[in-house]
């Protein structure tokens, strides 16, 4: 897992901060130019294919370029179930990758073994290699994978290796307007974007308002 953290550290900081502008620049460059090694085994591979296709487009995140050589890639996507037979292969590929490298467990089988609790499945790749982000789902929707990728990019930008739990981004209990937004209401748009507010007001006026 190494970091290439050769900058000066400012006082009071420990490992885990992008402490100089160089580090910040490196973090930014790394996170937006991830070369992936798609270690695809099973059904999650289908969602992986969907991810790289135009609708979900992982290229927007800079993470599109697949490199089928571990020497040239820095993000190991472990997509699908890893069986005991495949485990030495995975370990070898991981060891052949050069630092800095990150590992993404795509899918429940890669994260925990899934519902294959048996003699032949490795119960999660973290039993074999250190993992940076776990994306649950069987298979995860491409949006979930992109979310995981963004979390990983966040970690990369801050040069973080510590384990953590993802904070809920939207807590329904704190939303007084209701738990579900089925349609965008005129109220929301107005509060968020002033320019839109004026535009909306003009659009709404002739129709006498829309139902929320």
């Amino acid at each position, binding site marked *: 897992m190494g970091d290439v953290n050769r900058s000066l550290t400012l006082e009071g900081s420990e490992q885990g901060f992008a402490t100089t502008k160089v580090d910040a620049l490196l973090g930014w460059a790394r996170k937006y130019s991830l070369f992936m090694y798609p270690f*695809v*085994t099973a059904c999650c591979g289908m*969602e992986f*294919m*969907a991810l790289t296709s135009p609708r979900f487009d992982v290229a927007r995140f800079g993470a599109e370029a697949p490199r089928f050589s571990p020497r040239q890639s820095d993000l190991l996507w472990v997509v699908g179930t890893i*069986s005991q037979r495949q485990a030495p292969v995975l370990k070898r590929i991981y060891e052949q990758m050069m630092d800095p490298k990150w590992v993404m467990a795509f899918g429940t089988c890669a994260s925990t073994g899934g*519902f294959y*609790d048996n*003699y*032949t499945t490795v119960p999660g790749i973290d039993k074999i290699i250190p993992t940076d982000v776990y994306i649950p789902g069987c298979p995860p929707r491409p949006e979930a994978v992109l979310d995981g990728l963004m979390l990983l990019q966040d970690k990369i930008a801050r040069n973080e290796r510590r384990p953590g739990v993802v904070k809920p981004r939207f807590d329904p209990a704190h939303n007084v307007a209701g738990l579900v937004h089925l349609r965008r209401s005129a109220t929301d748009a107005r509060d968020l974007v002033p320019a839109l507010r004026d535009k909306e007001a003009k659009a709404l006026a002739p129709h006498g308002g829309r139902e929320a």
Partner: protein
Amino acid sequence: MEPLDMELEEGELELPAEPMHLNLGPSHPAMHGTVRIVLELSGETMVKADVQVGYLHRGFEKMCERGTWAQVFPYVDRLNYVSPMLNNVGYALAVEKLCGLVVPERCQWYRMALGELARISDHLTCDGAMAMELGAITPFLWFVKAREMVWDILEEETGARLTHSFGRIGGMANPPSRDFKGLCRAALPKIVGLVEEGERMLLKNRIFIDRLENVGAISGADAVALGWTGPCLRATGVAYDIRKAHPYLKYDEVDFDVPVGTKGDTLDRFLVRLGEIRQSRRIIEQSIDRMADDGPISCDDPAVVLPDKMAVYTTIEATIQHFKLIMEGAKIPKGEVYSYTEGGNGELGFYLVSDGSGTPYRVRIRPPCFQITGGLSKLLEGRMLSDIVPTFGSLNMIGGECDH
């Protein structure tokens, strides 16, 4: 595990007299994930190819023995994961054969329509991936776009894009949604349009044709002796399609043709799959025309079918029935059965042994691509290294099914 590289002693030179060993390892872009081919090469020509599968063995058959009959559906989905609905329907039909159940007509049409959608998705993936591996990345993206349309319909129906677990013993999990017919009718012309665009791009390309024509050819008799079924067998000229030979559901009441090839080479396999997409479209259109808009989707048999949720919450009988079906499993009568359907790759068979309890005694899947991949080494011998990619791609080996 088997050594990934050879060990040579210090000072020993690899003499050119011996064939070179090349390992197309289990993690390889063109190996569809998890097949390892250990080659002996003499120059560019392959002298011997040892195809090693099993890197995705997930213990499906052993897991089935640890749950109830209905808990097998998610496992079965993940066998041929590009056409999961066909696996669901195949397994449901097998258990129903063992029980002696016949699902209502509406369910039969529904199963056919969903199954054929899954078949379209399978063939699009296979042909798209094969084209991509030969360098034609654009048609792959078009085929995946078409596949997304299929998955949108399946998502509307079942809630999941890929592994739906939608089949149930005695019916399906939910009746068709209100917009199902409209969605199908709107999407199918677009899907076939994208297939035609891909064909126009690929089939006039001299390089593409040269890489596929006469590569990996096999005769019909050899293919049959190897146990091949499905599009790979039909490409050799043997017109064996279970939907025509031994119709199940309502396949004898719809009108469709079976594309059959002539030479059994990779190009024929490619074209047979494209042809089958069009035939699946015909089947879907006829099925949704004939499917009733209302009526029961599951059988009436309380021994295997879960009761309606409102009844479960309000009556005690339904609660008890629900409880027993979930906790102990549906009690399937004692016996054994072999039931076969036309899966995406060929004859998908289920051999079930029941001991009368709610847990299966043995669930054996007959995976079509296991036999087909068994013939791969024969197809590769004597050919050049770069012929592996189109040949292997055209066989459509799905790891989940082959290694079950």
